[in-house]
């Protein structure tokens, strides 16, 4: 009996590892996961500055690769795990610059969203603001509208929206 249980447990672990290892947009258990992000940084022009942001981004443990666009200070980031969204911002801030825009891309299968309501995606809590009620299907791009993820003037448009109050980190996003 113990042997059967141990075997079953082993098979379960193997299945979970396999599922997590071969999926870029769907991890174990069929949960959709973020595949990439597009980040625009502000406060810089030259390639040395862009390079300092690039080096900070590629050093993040959940980042697979980064394709920089030096001319436009933008970075296309591919993930290899659940992203730490605050760490993306911190990489830019630590390099001495600011985030002008951050969008996250995820492939969804009929996920209903409502304005001023939470949805958990890829294990992270998102609070949707300035959206109309809809069912999201297919590749979806979410823009993070928390302070520090967009210019101060643009943030003011969203800061009046209902603030999420939760013990864990909740990201405010819009479509």
């Amino acid at each position, binding site marked *: 009996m113990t042997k059967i249980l141990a075997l079953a447990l082993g098979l379960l672990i193997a299945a979970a590892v396999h599922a997590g290892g071969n999926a870029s947009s769907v991890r174990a258990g069929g949960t959709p996961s973020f595949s990439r992000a597009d980040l*625009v940084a*502000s*406060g*810089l*022009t*030259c*390639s*040395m*500055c*862009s*390079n*300092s942001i*690039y*080096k*900070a981004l590629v*050093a*993040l*443990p*959940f980042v697979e690769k980064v394709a*920089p666009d*030096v*001319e436009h*200070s933008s970075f296309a980031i591919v993930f290899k795990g659940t992203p*730490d969204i*605050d*760490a993306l911002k*911190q*990489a830019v*801030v*630590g*390099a*001495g*610059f*600011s985030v*002008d825009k951050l969008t996250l891309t995820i492939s969804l299968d009929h996920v209903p969203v409502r304005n001023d309501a939470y949805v958990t995606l890829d294990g992270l809590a998102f609070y949707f603001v300035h959206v109309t009620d809809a069912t999201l299907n297919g590749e979806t791009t979410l823009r993070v509208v928390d302070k520090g993820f967009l*210019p101060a003037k643009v943030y003011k448009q969203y800061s009046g929206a209902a603030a999420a109050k939760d013990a864990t980190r909740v990201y405010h996003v819009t479509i």
Partner: protein
Amino acid sequence: MKKMILWGLAAIAASPSLHAQELYVFTEPASNMATRSIGLRLDNTVYNNGAYRVSPEIMWGASRRWMVHVAGYASDMGRTFGPEGGSLYAKYRVFAHDEVHRHFRVALFGKVASVASRPAYKDEIDLSGTNTGGQMGVVATQLLHKLALSGSASYTQRWDGGPASRQAFGYTASAGLLLLPRHYTNYRQTNLNLMCELLGATALDKRAGYADIAPALQLIFHSIARLDMGYRTQVAGSMERWATGGLFVRLEYNILNAYGSHSKGR
């Protein structure tokens, strides 16, 4: 000495962090280098009185607000070539407003320098190898796409012996223009920046002062290594000085994310 220069030349291969246009040659901008980055410099000056000074320097991006420089000085201003002393410089960014391809920043800075005892007979206070003393000041920098403008004001006090001036008000104005490349496509493109700086000081305890103009060219390789070439010359003033200018060459190499991880934020 020769070994140091050779080492510096070898190091030129690669150094990034700020905005190239404001990586001024004779002054510091209000921006800091990237957190957890380390920069290595080798500054060489051939003064217009024939003297030579070399200064190795290590720079550290301690946080997004703090950066620190430690420098050593050696020259042949004595009878033979030898070490003179060292300095510690720190800069704290107090304000930053960023927009795409633009920013405005303000920082406070301080410097202390200690050199082997040498009574001062010249009124210029130089904390880069000549005098023992301290300095504090404020610097503001505006980036406007390919042009960067910067200005600073400082107070300097000399602590070593001798009858020369002990206090000075310093001021600088700097402009940097990114000339090449016209359009960025990758990090391997060589950047060319044209700089022009005004460097001045007025003694606060006697009637003396000077103003220098310092044009410079800067090459940046692989978005990581830097070669600065500048010439400083006096355009106004009557202050007694060791030298009124000279040729300046700097080699710099930066190591980004030299240690630790960004994953836990600042």
